[in-house]
């Protein structure tokens, strides 16, 4: 790591001032220190935001829950009420990395982590995501890469929580230019769809403050498939949320991660599922809709049937 200055911020205003143009916010530090050690990002100051007031709370409510951006993934995993209210979120959190990481990793950091593409993470490779000319994964080793993208970079979003939050129709509250801005999860990642150098839609200096989750959907589920049983990123992950009344779905939402630079969701599939009775055939048709137009590359064709199976299983988990 190159040398940097360090400060602890006690208010969001001073955090923003201290970060200025060339600093970075430090919370759990898992992703940031990895990036600094590989010289993938540079920062002249690290601003510790762990002391910002009110951002490490989980607050329940009748219509919405809010989860502060500084809440750790481990806190979500250990929260009995979240397990009951948002089982899909709880399952997604439990599958994040290892306990050592979950104990320090924050919700904000999990959502804003950079691409795990090995070309991006290799310090000597100047790929498209780093401002180079070429996505090396397109004609290279692409087994972990996207089936969908709106630009030439095929590295996918890998945040488990993003997938779960998308299915739950959560909203991120982001501090931007001194004001609180509300962004749906789709909006939070939209820029990564369009712009190969973006990992999400956050501008320099933007800070995720809270995530608001509506309680409208009583059931949720999450599943992932990984190379290893534990302590691994997903090859594909899937979350679904809905209400189920007499076996019929209402307000269903399905999202997938690790197959697109944004949490992948297809409105036509959500519309199709609305009012349907959950069974194998329905789940399978929804999976067809969700994966329509998938563009596999040389080594990641397996993700299509894998995603198909995960969508079916996750939906059927909603039956309880």
């Amino acid at each position, binding site marked *: 790591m190159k040398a*940097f200055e360090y400060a602890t911020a*006690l208010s969001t205003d001073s955090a923003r001032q201290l970060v200025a143009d060339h600093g970075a916010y430090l919370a759990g530090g898992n992703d940031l220190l990895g990036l600094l050690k590989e010289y993938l990002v540079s920062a002249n100051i690290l601003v510790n935001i762990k002391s910002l007031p009110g951002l490490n709370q989980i607050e329940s409510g009748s219509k919405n829950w809010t989860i502060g951006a500084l809440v750790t993934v481990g806190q979500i995993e250990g929260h009995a009420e979240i397990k009951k209210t948002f089982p899909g979120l709880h399952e997604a959190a439990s599958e994040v990395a290892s306990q050592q990481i979950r104990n320090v990793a924050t919700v904000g950091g999990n959502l804003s982590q950079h691409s795990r593409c090995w070309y991006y993470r290799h310090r000597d490779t100047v790929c498209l995501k780093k401002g180079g000319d070429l996505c090396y994964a397109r004609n290279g080793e692409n087994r972990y890469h996207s089936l969908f993208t709106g630009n030439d970079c095929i590295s996918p979003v890998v945040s488990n929580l993003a997938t779960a939050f998308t299915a739950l129709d959560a909203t991120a509250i982001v501090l931007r230019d001194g004001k609180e801005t509300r962004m749906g999860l789709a909006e939070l990642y939209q820029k990564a769809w369009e712009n190969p150098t973006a990992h999400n839609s956050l501008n320099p200096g933007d800070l995720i403050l809270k995530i608001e989750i509506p309680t409208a959907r009583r059931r949720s589920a999450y599943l992932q498939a990984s190379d290893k*049983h534990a302590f691994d990123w997903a090859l594909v992950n899937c979350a679904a949320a809905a209400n189920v009344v007499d076996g019929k779905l209402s307000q269903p939402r399905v999202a997938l991660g690790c197959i697109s630079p944004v949490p992948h969701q297809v409105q036509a599939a959500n519309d199709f599922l609305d009012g349907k009775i959950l069974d194998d055939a329905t789940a399978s048709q929804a999976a067809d809709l969700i994966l329509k137009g998938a563009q596999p590359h040389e080594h990641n064709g397996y993700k299509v049937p894998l995603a198909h199976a995960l969508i079916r299983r996750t939906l059927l988990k909603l039956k309880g």
Partner: protein
Amino acid sequence: MKSPEPENFGAHSRRTFLKTLGTAAVTAAAARAQSVAAELEKVNAEKTLGPGAVPVTLKVNGETLKLMLEPRVTLLDALRNYSSLTGAKESCDRAACGACTVMMDNTPIYACQKLAIEAQGREITTVEGLAKNGKLTKVQQAFWDKDALQCGYCTPGFVMSVTALLKKNPRPTAEEVKHACAGNLCRCGTHPHILQAVFQATGVNTASKTEVMDYA
């Protein structure tokens, strides 16, 4: 293990200070140390420190370490290279292997991916802080008895993860042990013996409960 004595270590270590006091005073002193740390954090807050070395005070295994560190120095680096506490191992240095696992306020974390300057005011426990008066803890003894190591490089990390688990959950299932140890890698493949060791430490008869840990 020799006590860490960095050059600029204060004239009175926490240990010698506490030796001169009774138990009641120790409790009061500990409480005061916490509030002093909190005060210090407030005073230093919003002040830009570094990039050169700055005073950093760490509480490790009950002792106070006063160090001069650049803000970029990780907790692992501070322990191993500035304090002679080499129990926590450096292997991947990327939060991927678990060899550097230490406890921060009884919670296992990777010391390689935490800045030392951030760990001020927290109780850090390394593997050196477990045995008291030369007597191994139940977990350490169980690793010894069950031969739960081969090259031993990952062992301190596993011992810390298991110790933290048993503090929270004194009778874990095999699944819970696996979940808690998923962030520790052993390339020698000693996992079955580690599981036996955990069972011994929890007082379960391992002869009948042994199973091979499936870490596929």
